C-alpha cells in the first residue's frame, strides 16, 4: 500500500475529503476541527488553490462521525501539516481526475487545459467545468500515490492572507457555537458536583424542585433537567443543598507543592529522554538550577457545553471536542455499547488550548439525556466547573546541571524533568478518561495521565532537550504514578517549563561568559532557520542598541517547538513596579509555508499573550480537598489594561513544509519575560508565576 501524505494515509478515499456539486460549490470535510485557530479557513484556501476555484466556492463542513475522515485529535499544532497535507494531495488528485475525464471526452491533451475558477479551458475555448462534470463517483477511489500539487510559485490563494470564514458570524452574534444550538423539545441540564475531589454522594434528601426539574443520579453523578435554563440552574442550587457527600483530604499541600513533586517522583516512573556522549572539553564550572511551575488551567472563556439526544439505542452528540472519534470511543466505553451507535458532531466552542472540559461535558450530556429519551439535552457547565473540574496542565519541576568550559560555552547538560503525564485524552486507553466515568455507581478507574512518545513531541519532556550544541547530554524524566489532580494537555505541554528553564540557563551562562544573550545563543546554534528568527527579532526590537531604563528590562527567548516544528524567537520588555508587567513583545516566527499569513500572525501573537498571562498571573490554587481558584478572581488572566504591545515578523518559506503556528510562541514569551525580569531586577526567576512572592524566593 503506497504511502500518502498526512492523514490521507489512514483515510485514503478522496470522497472522504471533498465533494463537488453541480451548482458550483465544493464541500471539504476534514476531520480537524475549528477551535478559533482558523483551521477551516486555512484548509479552504488549500482546497481552492489545488482545485483552482474561488475561495468563496469552498464550504468546510464541521467534522462528524462516521463520515468525516478520522483525523484523531486537533492538537499539537499539526492540523495544517496532517490535514492540510492530506487535503492538498486529495484536491490535486481530484483536479487530475476531472481534467483526465474532460481531456478524453473532448480529445485534447490534458496538458493543454487550464482552469479558471473551476471552468476548464482548452486550446479552442471552454470545454467543461467541475460543475458540469460533477460526479461524486469520480471521487469514490483511493488517492493515487503521485499527484502534482501546484508549485509554490503558482499559488494564488494559499500563501495569501484572507479573512477568516467564521468571523462574520461572530461579530454579528449569529448562532454558531454549540452553546447556541436550539433543538425542538430541548431540555436544559446542569450538574451538581461534589464539594471535594473523590467525594461520594451518600444521601440525597427528596423534595420539590423549581420547574418540576428532573433529577438524574448514577452513583455520585448528579444532574438536573428542566425546560428552561433558569429552572435548571435554580434546581441545581436547590439540589446541591440537599446532597450529603463523604469527603476526605486527597490533594497535596499547595504551600509545599515542589516538595510533594520530589517525594512523588521517588515513587514514579523514571525514563531516559535523550543522551549524547560526544567528546567534551574539560568542565570549568557547573550551574545547578531548579525550576518549578504550578498547575495551569485552560480558562476557556465559555464554560464547556454539549447537546445529546437518545433515540432508542442510538445517541447523537453535538460537541466542541478536539477529537470526535476519540470522544465517541470513550462514550461507548462508558455506555458499554458499540461505538457505531453513537454519532458525534463537532460544533464550535470558545477558544481551546488543549484538553479542556469539552469531552467531559459531552459524557455529562449523554448520561443526563439517557433519562429523557427522545429529547435533546443541552448540558452547560458553570464557571466553577470549568475552572475547577476541567483537566489541568500538571505542576512540574526540573533540575538542571549545566557544565561550562573554560570559554564559558556549554560542555555538558544533565536534566531531570518531574511531572504528571500531560495527556489523559479520550480514546487512547482501554478505560474511558472522561470526568464523570469515575463518579458512576459502577465507576471506572482514574489512571495517571501518560506522555505522548518523544517521536510525537513528548509530553512532560517536550522541548526538554536543548536545541543548542552541547557535546555531552543526559535528559531524563519521571512520570508520577499518582494523580491527585487530574492532568492533561495544555498548549505547549511540558515546553512551557522546559524552554524557560533552558533559556534561563543560556542567559546565566552568557552573563558568566561576558557575552550578549543573543550572541551566546547564536554561537550554540547550527540551524540556520533558528539563527534567522533570532536575528530577525533582535532587529525588530532594536536589541543591539537597546538602552537601559530604571525599572525596565528586556529579555530574549527562543525555541523550535518540539525541536521539529515552528521556530519562534521573542523579545519582551518588562516593567517592575509593585509587580512585574510585560509592556512590549516582539516576535519573529518561521512556520515553513504559511497558508494564511495573517492567521499565523494572529496565532503567534495570541500564543505569546497567553504566555505573558501564564508568566505573570496564572496558578491553580487548591486546599486539601478541592480547587479553590474556580472563579475569575481566583484565577486571573491578563486583561486589556496590561496586555503588552506586540510587533511581529513572519519569515515565510513557501517552499518548506507546514510546521504549525499555535504553540510556538508561548514558551519563548515566558522565557523572554524571565530574562527581562533579570535585567530589571537582577534576579533569575525560578518559579512560575513571576509574582512578587515567587520572585522574592529567587
Amino acid at each position, binding site marked *: 500500500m503506497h504511502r500518502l501524505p498526512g492523514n490521507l494515509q489512514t483515510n485514503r478515499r478522496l470522497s472522504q475529503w471533498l465533494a463537488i456539486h453541480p451548482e458550483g460549490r465544493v464541500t471539504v470535510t476534514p476531520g480537524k476541527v475549528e477551535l478559533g485557530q482558523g483551521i477551516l479557513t486555512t484548509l479552504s484556501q488549500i482546497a481552492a488553490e489545488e482545485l483552482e476555484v474561488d475561495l468563496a466556492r469552498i464550504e468546510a463542513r464541521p467534522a462528524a462521525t462516521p463520515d468525516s475522515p478520522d483525523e484523531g485529535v486537533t492538537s499539537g499544532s499539526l492540523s495544517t501539516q496532517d490535514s492540510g497535507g492530506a487535503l492538498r494531495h486529495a484536491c490535486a488528485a481530484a483536479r487530475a481526475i476531472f481534467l483526465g475525464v474532460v481531456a478524453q471526452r473532448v480529445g485534447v491533451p490534458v496538458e493543454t487545459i487550464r482552469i479558471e475558477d473551476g471552468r476548464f479551458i482548452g486550446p479552442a475555448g471552454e470545454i467543461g467545468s467541475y460543475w458540469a462534470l460533477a460526479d461524486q463517483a469520480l471521487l469514490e477511489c483511493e488517492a493515487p500515490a503521485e499527484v502534482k500539487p501546484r508549485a509554490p510559485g503558482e499559488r494564488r490563494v494559499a500563501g495569501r492572507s484572507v479573512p477568516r470564514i467564521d*468571523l462574520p458570524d461572530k461579530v454579528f452574534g449569529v448562532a454558531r457555537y454549540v*452553546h447556541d444550538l436550539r433543538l425542538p423539545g430541548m431540555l436544559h441540564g446542569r450538574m451538581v458536583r461534589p464539594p471535594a475531589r473523590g467525594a461520594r454522594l451518600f444521601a440525597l434528601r427528596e423534595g420539590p424542585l423549581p420547574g418540576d426539574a428532573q433529577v438524574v443520579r448514577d452513583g455520585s453523578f448528579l444532574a438536573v433537567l428542566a425546560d428552561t435554563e433558569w429552572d435548571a440552574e435554580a434546581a441545581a442550587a436547590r439540589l446541591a443543598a440537599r446532597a450529603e457527600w463523604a469527603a476526605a483530604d486527597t490533594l497535596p499541600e499547595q504551600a509545599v507543592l515542589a516538595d510533594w513533586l520530589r517525594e512523588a517522583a521517588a515513587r514514579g516512573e523514571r525514563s531516559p529522554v535523550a543522551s549524547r556522549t560526544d567528546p567534551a572539553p574539560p568542565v570549568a564550572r557547573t550551574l545547578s538550577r531548579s525550576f518549578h511551575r504550578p498547575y495551569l488551567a485552560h480558562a476557556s*472563556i465559555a464554560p464547556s457545553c454539549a447537546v445529546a439526544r437518545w433515540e432508542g439505542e442510538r445517541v447523537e452528540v453535538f460537541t466542541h471536542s478536539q477529537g470526535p472519534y476519540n470522544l465517541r470511543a470513550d462514550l461507548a466505553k462508558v455506555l458499554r455499547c458499540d461505538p457505531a451507535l453513537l454519532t458525534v458532531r463537532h460544533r464550535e466552542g470558545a477558544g481551546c488550548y488543549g484538553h479542556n472540559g469539552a469531552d467531559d461535558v459531552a459524557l455529562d450530556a449523554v448520561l443526563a439525556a439517557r433519562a429523557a429519551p427522545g429529547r435533546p439535552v443541552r448540558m452547560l457547565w458553570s464557571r466553577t466547573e470549568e475552572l475547577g473540574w476541567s483537566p489541568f496542565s500538571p505542576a512540574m519541576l526540573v533540575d538542571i546541571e549545566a557544565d561550562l568550559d573554560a570559554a564559558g560555552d556549554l560542555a555538558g547538560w544533565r536534566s531531570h524533568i518531574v511531572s504528571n503525564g500531560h495527556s489523559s485524552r479520550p480514546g487512547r486507553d482501554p478505560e474511558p478518561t472522561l470526568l464523570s466515568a469515575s463518579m458512576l455507581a459502577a465507576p471506572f478507574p482514574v489512571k495517571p495521565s501518560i506522555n505522548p512518545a518523544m517521536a510525537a513531541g513528548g509530553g512532560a519532556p517536550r522541548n526538554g532537550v536543548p536545541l543548542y550544541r552541547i557535546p555531552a547530554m543526559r535528559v531524563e524524566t519521571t512520570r508520577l504514578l499518582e494523580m491527585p489532580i487530574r492532568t492533561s494537555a495544555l498548549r505547549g505541554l511540558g515546553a512551557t517549563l522546559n524552554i524557560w528553564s533552558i533559556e534561563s540557563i543560556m542567559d546565566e551562562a552568557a552573563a558568566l561568559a561576558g557575552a550578549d544573550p543573543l550572541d551566546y545563543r547564536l554561537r550554540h546554534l547550527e540551524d540556520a532557520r533558528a539563527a534567522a528568527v533570532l536575528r530577525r527579532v533582535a532587529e525588530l526590537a532594536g536589541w543591539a542598541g537597546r538602552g537601559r531604563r530604571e525599572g525596565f528590562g528586556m529579555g530574549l527567548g527562543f525555541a523550535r517547538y518540539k525541536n521539529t516544528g515552528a521556530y519562534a524567537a521573542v523579545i519582551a520588555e518588562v516593567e517592575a513596579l509593585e509587580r512585574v508587567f510585560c509592556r512590549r513583545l516582539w516576535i519573529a516566527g518561521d512556520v515553513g509555508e504559511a497558508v494564511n499569513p495573517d492567521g499565523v500572525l494572529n496565532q503567534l*501573537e495570541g500564543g505569546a499573550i497567553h504566555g505573558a498571562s501564564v508568566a505573570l498571573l496564572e496558578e491553580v490554587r487548591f486546599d486539601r480537598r478541592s480547587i479553590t481558584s474556580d472563579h*475569575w478572581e481566583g484565577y486571573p488572566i491578563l*486583561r486589556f489594561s496590561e496586555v503588552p504591545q506586540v510587533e511581529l515578523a513572519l519569515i515565510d518559506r513557501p517552499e518548506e513544509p507546514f510546521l504549525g503556528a499555535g504553540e510556538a510562541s508561548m514558551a519563548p514569551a515566558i522565557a523572554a519575560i524571565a530574562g527581562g525580569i533579570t535585567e530589571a531586577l537582577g534576579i533569575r526567576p525560578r518559579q512560575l508565576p513571576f509574582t512578587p512572592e515567587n520572585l522574592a524566593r529567587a
Partner: protein
Amino acid sequence: MPRFTLNGTAVALDVPEEATLLHALRGPGGLSGPRFGCGNEQCGACMVLVEGEPCCACTLPVAAVAGKAVVTVEGLGTPGAPHPLQAAFLAEQAGQCGYCLSGILISAAALLARDPAPEEAAIRAALEPHLCRCGSHNRILRAVARAAREMA
C-alpha cells in the same frame, strides 16, 4: 412579564421576574449574541446596552429593564448594514474564537457614543471588564480605533 424594548422592538418575554436578563434574551428572546461566560460579572461576555449603558446581563434581573431600551450585538448592525465597529473588527480580523466579541462590541459602542475619538488608554479602560483568552487584544484595540476614525 416585564415589557421592554429589545433592539428597537417592544417585547414581553415569558420568564419569571427574578430571572436574569441573559436568560430572557437567550431563552424566549431567541438571541445568541449575549453569551454566558461566568454568571458573575467577571468576564463581560454577556454585555448589553441598557439605556445606552453597558450592563452585564448575567446578573441583572429582567424586571430591572422594564420600560427600558436594551440593545445587544444583534441590534448594532447586520451583515448587510454593519455597525462601523463590526466592519472594523472584520477589517482588522480582530478575533480568534470570537466568544468574547459580542460583549466587547457592546462596550466599544458605548465608548464611541460618549467619546468619539478615544485615546488607546480609554479604549483599554472601556474594555477592562472583558476577558479574551485567545490574545486578540491588540487587534481589538486597533479595530475600535479604526471604527472611531471611520465614524469621524
